[in-house]
């Protein structure tokens, strides 16, 4: 099924796309059909900078279990950062 569900948020940082590094300003997160991954549904993340055009995008399509493991790894890394390194 197409889930249509999409979460969008503003982000800050940099991403490396097909044309090299660029500042990322927006992210989309959705669990839906992939374009490339050989699965019916994947957890998809687009890191984008709309002001630079549609091609300014870093895209990943992850198996849902992989996406959950990655999410935990991200949170664990942030939670275990040395004191004062990461704003709370």
């Amino acid at each position, binding site marked *: *099924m*197409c*889930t*249509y*569900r*999409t979460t*969008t948020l503003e982000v800050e940082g940099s991403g490396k796309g097909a044309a090299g590094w660029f500042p990322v300003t*927006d992210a*989309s997160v*959705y669990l*839906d*059909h992939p*374009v490339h991954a*050989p*699965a*019916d549904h994947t957890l998809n993340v*687009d890191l*984008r900078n*709309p002001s630079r*055009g*549609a*091609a300014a*995008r870093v*895209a990943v399509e992850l198996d849902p279990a992989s996406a959950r493991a990655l999410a935990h790894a991200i949170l664990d890394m942030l939670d275990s950062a040395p004191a004062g390194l990461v704003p709370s």
Partner: protein
Amino acid sequence: MTPGDLTAETVTIVGHGGDPVEAYLAAPVGGPPVGGVVVIHHMPGYDAGTKEITRKIAANGYLALMPNLYFREAPGASPDDAAAAARANGGVPDDRLVGDVAGSMAHLASLPVSNGRLATIGYCSGGRQSLLAACSLDLDAAVDCYGAFALSAPPDGFPMAVTPIGDKVADLSCPLLGLFGSEDQYPGPEEVVELERLLVAAGKEVEFHSYEGAGHAFFNTDRPSFRAEAAGDGWERIWAFFGRHLTG
């Protein structure tokens, strides 16, 4: 003329609001005037798979035109980048979709080889849009392949511009062929049954088929969801349906 011969190329049509819109046109080579089909692409966009469908329709004897519904969001972008941009912006507004289909119809009808009879076919989000177009424009036939949210509303807090169109079924202008997978959840079997009931109650000519063992996107040869038997039978029904309604 050899049946199955076709030409295929990128053209520009006049879409909603008078906007120039990129489109993919496939046409049979030689032969008598034929009907035309507006191909409405799925949410992943104006992609190679849907261009293949457009050529398939031409190889089977009809004009076929697929407008790039994401052209305004991302002209010249790869299909997946354009789809991502459109998705982040809430998708294609219904009025813009109807306008782009109307422009596609006008383009097809203007071609010397057109017999003036026109249809829409859409897959996934395009299935709902095919139904919407047929409720908004004067068509001779419409095909809805597993279109979701024709009747049900999307979940709360979801940014896609997708609204139910059940209140429009009384305006359906043409016969409708609906092809669905029994294992699909969007649309689920209950929604498919209810949509058929509403259309029949409104006096519309409807032919619905739901395939056991098939879920969403069973026509899509690029995905694990592809079901050869359902897709094969589905295509045969589409050719029979177009044969009845697009022959001048």
